[in-house]
């Protein structure tokens, strides 16, 4: 599997003026323990998603094995096995599975993802995250996990309920 920075195909690039993307990567000042804590919080989120059939079922239909890695920690990362309508988080070490997708994030992005606020495609597009493989398959279902920890404003909570009744 190649990483996204290798083997770029210039023909597939959008003209550079089409996007407001920025290449800046956040300064790394966080101590190691913070990197570890952010990472473990994120793993918890995916484990929780795996236990929630409403979320795990659609994710488990993408039939991909996602290698999730921290760019700020040594270690091989975890595999998100998305298959047969189930989402399982497994340690990469000793796993027989081979990843089909890789997504590697730095701690600031890991923290945002864990609270449901990372716009992951943009993080990839402007170089704050790296990927390999058909990452779009995973990006497609990632909103379900993000909404689990960061639910959108519920219907009708900021308008009067009578109107909600009337139009619902």
């Amino acid at each position: 599997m190649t990483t996204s920075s290798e083997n770029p195909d210039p023909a597939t690039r959008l003209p550079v003026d089409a996007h407001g993307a920025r290449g800046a990567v956040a300064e790394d000042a966080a101590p190691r323990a913070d990197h570890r804590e952010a990472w473990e919080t994120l793993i918890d989120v995916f484990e929780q998603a795996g236990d929630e059939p409403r979320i795990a079922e659609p994710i488990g239909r993408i039939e991909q094995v996602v290698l999730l890695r921290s760019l700020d920690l040594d270690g091989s990362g975890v595999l998100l096995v998305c298959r047969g309508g189930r989402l399982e988080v497994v340690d990469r070490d000793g796993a027989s599975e081979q990843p089909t997708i890789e997504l590697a994030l730095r701690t600031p992005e890991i923290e945002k993802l864990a609270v449901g606020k990372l716009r992951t495609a943009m993080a990839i597009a402007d170089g704050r995250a790296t990927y390999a493989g058909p990452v779009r398959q995973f990006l497609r279902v990632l909103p379900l996990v993000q909404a689990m920890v960061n639910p959108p404003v519920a219907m009708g909570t900021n308008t009067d309920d009578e109107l909600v009744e009337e139009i619902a």
Partner: protein
Amino acid sequence: MTAADAKTAALLDRASGYDYHQGPMTVPQTNPGDFWSIECIDLYKSFGSNRVMNGLNVGIPEGMITVILGPSGTGKSVLLSHLIGLMFPDKGDILVHGESVPRMKQARLLEMRRKFGILFQDGALFGSMNVYDNVAFPLRQHTDMSEEQIKDVVMRRLDEVGLANGAETRSPAELSGGMKKRAGFARALVLEPQIVLFDEPDSGLDPVRTALLCQLIEKVHAENGGTYVVITHDIASARRIGEYIAVLWKGRIVQSGDRDDMFDSPNPFVRQFLAGNPGGPLGME
């Protein structure tokens, strides 16, 4: 053109001419469609002497709600027709999941369109069918599901948009504007599209109903994932639901980006346009 429209036009002209060069895409894709769901590459389209697209470039990111924002008549519906291969560009390419739409053979094009769910401006419901049958229509047309299976899907989708009650007895004519859009939204979802397009979902709705529809769009996106593209001239809607925003003017994208980057744009004219204040200090001269 009203005085307000003229001010917006003047502001957008200046926004397009502003010499801020947006940052390069630092990460090229290994393969087309790796993280952009849709890519519009250097599109040109004219109707006679009316040039509607003039070198339009935009990428629609996967897994996000994108808003394409532009005043009426800027070619938003024309762009939407190009995405689903109902119109073809004079020049340039449209990639959907990395695959060129203008180069598709007819059979592939028909298959490709099933990736899309579309909410048309007026809901585009069949007046002769009740709400239930309207929503069931794509399933009866495109799948061999049994009526029992269809009922399952239809009721789930109607429930999702808050229209489950009385769907089998109500005809579209009995629905309010907001309800018609909800029914159209339910119908757009039944085939589990990976991309949902909304053409001016806020048109004809008052601000409160627009806010409710925006909330519904966000909720359904959160539950289903995928790529949502909302086309609108309403800055308030863009501000409310756009995670990624592209401003369209005179056949090009003036700027596009993550919403935070857009509201924080180094281009003062884009900032002022998004602030909904075309007559502000920058537009006065």
